[in-house]
């Protein structure tokens, strides 16, 4: 009698195994088999969908509404598509305050405007009290294909660029829940990444938004499909002051914390400096940095390695257990 555990939804290896064992074989579609953030369809359009559950609904820097827009927008951007249209499906729990819903809808409107996407279709369902948790949202997004990321073009010596600090979203949500009884000025980084779209033309080979499971998990999925190891320099990873403090105090590793407005970009060495400069010119990319490279001096193909601040070398594994609260 196997039951679905929370861990399955944490974005780690368990979820990937689940997709590979249950979902992909059930439908056997070559487009689905790629398991990309968004799928490029015939005719130059891309499609993605995502569901949003977060506790609490509102947190410093965002809410479930901003997540529902930006998350779907970002999935399109990192797949090489310019976001155009969104659907909006709401699942509401009986008894929800109308005022709460108004706030969420207001956030969705503002976020859509900021990301330059239109909400063009939708659905609303109400479930009995206790059968849902206040508000669940699903959005699907359609975008125009601007590039097709191709992993096979990734080469030895390519650089990894992170577009900003890690973990701010995770920490903001954890603290908003009242966990740990700490206070901090940290705000979620929830934001649209559309400013990264021109980088596809500037030579970016691959991008991923750093969400559930954090940087370590996202990059583990990358290296599994590369014929080279990837080495990350711990010292080079930008962290905000609150996240650095929380990681030292609480022992939470920022490499596993979720973001909602950061991406990692793989770029050829010759173009990395130019791409980094362009990211940094945007207000959302000021703290961008080169954090590592595709290499072959240490480790073996498929391994993600970390050079620690202490100067040691170790493996970096994907997130395997969900001990953090539900955050996205």
């Amino acid at each position, binding site marked *: 009698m196997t*039951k679905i555990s929370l861990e399955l939804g944490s974005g780690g290896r*368990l979820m990937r195994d689940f997709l590979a064992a249950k979902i992909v074989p059930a439908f056997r579609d070559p487009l689905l088999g790629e398991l990309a953030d968004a799928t490029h369809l015939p005719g130059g359009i891309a499609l993605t969908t995502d569901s949003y559950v977060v506790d609490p609904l509102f947190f410093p820097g965002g809410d479930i509404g901003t997540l529902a827009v930006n998350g779907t927008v970002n999935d399109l951007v990192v797949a090489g598509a310019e976001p155009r249209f969104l659907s909006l499906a709401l699942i509401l729990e009986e008894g929800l305050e109308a005022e709460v819903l108004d706030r969420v809808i207001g956030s969705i409107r503002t976020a859509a405007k900021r990301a330059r996407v239109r909400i063009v279709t939708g659905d609303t369902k109400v479930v009995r009290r206790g059968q849902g948790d206040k508000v669940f949202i699903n959005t699907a997004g359609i975008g125009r294909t601007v590039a097709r990321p191709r992993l096979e073009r990734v080469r030895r010596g390519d650089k990894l660029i992170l577009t900003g600090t890690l973990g701010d979203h995770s920490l903001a949500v954890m603290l908003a829940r009242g966990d740990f009884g700490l206070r901090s000025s940290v705000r979620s980084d929830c934001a649209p990444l559309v400013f990264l779209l021109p980088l596809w033309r500037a030579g970016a080979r691959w991008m991923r938004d750093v969400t559930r499971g954090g940087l370590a998990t996202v990059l583990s999925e990358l290296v599994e499909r590369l014929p080279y190891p990837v080495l990350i320099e711990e010292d080079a990873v930008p962290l905000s002051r609150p996240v650095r403090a929380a990681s030292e105090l609480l022992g939470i590793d920022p490499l596993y914390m979720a973001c909602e407005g950061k991406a990692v970009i793989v770029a050829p060495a010759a173009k990395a400096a130019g791409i980094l400069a362009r990211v940094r010119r945007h207000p959302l990319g000021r703290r961008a940095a080169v954090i590592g490279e595709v290499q072959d*001096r240490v*480790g073996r193909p498929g391994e993600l390695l970390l050079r620690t601040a*202490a*100067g040691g070398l*170790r*493996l970096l594994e994907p997130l395997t257990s969900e*001990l953090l609260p539900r955050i996205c």
Partner: protein
Amino acid sequence: MKELRDPAVLRRLLDEIGAKAGLLRRTPRLMEVCGTHTMTLFKHGLTPMLAEAGVEMVSGPGCPVCITPNAVHEAAIAAVTRTEGLTLAAFGDMTRVPTRKGSLQAAVPAAGSRLRIVYSPEEALDEARREPGRQVVFFGAGFETTIPGIAYTAKRAAAEGLRNFSILPALWLIPPALRAILDAGEIAVDGFIYPGHVSAVIGAAPYEFVARDYGIPGAIAGFEPGDMLLGVRSVLDQALAGRAEVALEYGRAIGREGNAVARALMDEVFEPFDAVWRGLGKIPGSGLRFRAEYAGLDAGRRWGMAAETAEMADASDLAGCRCGEVLRGVIRPAGCPLFSKRCRPDSPLGPCMVSFEGACLIHFKYGPVRRARS
């Protein structure tokens, strides 16, 4: 604090360690007793750096989740699955340990019952206050580091006369376990790195027997990379000088005498007994149980969870799991045929692959990096 992570400082310490280790007749083998130390060594990549410097590190039994025998985990599962309207509050790691009855996390609670992950015993006590109609059981697992907090919570519950709060104790003492490992003689240890957090409570005196009776040097160390290297250097210094003592290399945080208030609190609520550890068997005076005055708070007694009876004798691992030997430092995680094959963090077969302080999980997650063949 920053200095203790400065690569230049660490390099200098490693060079010193390398020079000292080179003067010894054979590669010194040091046991880091505490799981959090194992974590520091691996997370910062220090283990391979120490190996290069000529020092072998082996992990000890310092993981409370790991050494708690299956019978106790199963008692907790029984409580939440058989009793209605009960909250079992536990630390996250405790909920994933696989037993013959599955894990706490996968158990289906009885009607109205639930499993709740907490960060401190206080959270469980709060729930008992808020919901007087609900029985709240705190699965209290830990070493000397966490025991004073649990004792304090027990005292508060008793003082407030809360009738719906109890504690399932899985409380372990480090020094008796070290004696058991030394007496078993399965592994030659040239030095110990003693746990800084545990020592903050018990002080240096409880380890003196290791130096006095067994002639083995040791040092109490903190949890930054530099702390641990200072500890290793101190042990090597003692070995070179033919001395054995309990050096304090964590003076920035603790004193040799420990925390007498915390010890008094433990002593007021709990008393030692001969407890069974996973992998180590029955060790005299190595566990704590409620004193008679606090027996009313003992979930074991209240819910018939026989935490210290005959059932405890069965501390065995699941078939094939060699956690016990890993906990004694006799084999490394990779020496277990299940390691990284059938036993992985997302499908653990033993507690050492579950706990954040478990040697198997730490070795799996962080370790060893191979140079590319060129």
